[in-house]
């Protein structure tokens, strides 16, 4: 993957973007994770960190995107993948700026993939234990889970 293609995909999700803030870097990590989880591989390998799935390669490439304004949007040659991407855009539209949702959704997906037999309650507990800010958010985490059912879960 090169930074031009990454930037072109990102531009279809966020019209304005930079790597200056932690919030934007978090959104980048989680949105690309979810895009890959939806079946469109961009080749990024992820590991689980404090704020959920994180890819160092993705961070490196995103920092190479300069002048986001001039980046051209990118589509997919394969019609089926393009349709999948458009479906992704629709599903993510109401959540793409919600850091809590993005962090929890990507964490639920990653833990469920690593531990396919782990009961839902246990996955929720693992996410809650990650950071003190998530400890009292059991119900909200379960609500995010519902958003993912029938899509990437």
């Amino acid at each position: 993957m090169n930074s031009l293609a990454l930037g072109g995909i990102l531009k279809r999700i966020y019209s304005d973007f930079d790597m200056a803030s932690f919030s934007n870097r978090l959104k980048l990590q989680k949105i690309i994770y979810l895009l890959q989880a939806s079946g469109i591989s961009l080749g990024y390998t992820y590991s689980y960190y404090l704020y959920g799935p994180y890819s160092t390669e993705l961070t490196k490439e995103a920092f190479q995107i300069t002048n986001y304004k001039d980046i051209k949007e990118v589509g997919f040659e394969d019609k089926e993948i393009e349709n999948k991407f458009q479906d992704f855009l629709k599903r993510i539209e109401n959540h793409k700026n919600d850091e809590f949702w993005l962090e929890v959704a990507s964490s639920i997906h990653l833990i469920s993939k690593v531990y396919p037999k782990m009961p839902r309650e246990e996955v929720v507990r693992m996410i809650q234990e990650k950071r003190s800010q998530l400890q009292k958010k059991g119900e909200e985490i379960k609500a995010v889970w519902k958003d993912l059912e029938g899509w990437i879960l």
Partner: protein
Amino acid sequence: MKSSMKDGLKLIFNPKNESDKVQEKVIGLQKEEPISATFSMFDDAIKKNSDVYKLKKPIKPKGKIPHFLFL
């Protein structure tokens, strides 16, 4: 801190250095915790570590990177 004079040599003995404190804690724990509980603590720690290890393993995406076109 204790000090004593022996054969004209002043010995300084500080039993509260860091390794002594750790030793004291370990001995204290062994006294307080029954052996089974200690083993159960180890089991939990091992399980937790293996959970963390599995999650730390890099997860590769499935499938090939598709061909892009500039719009």
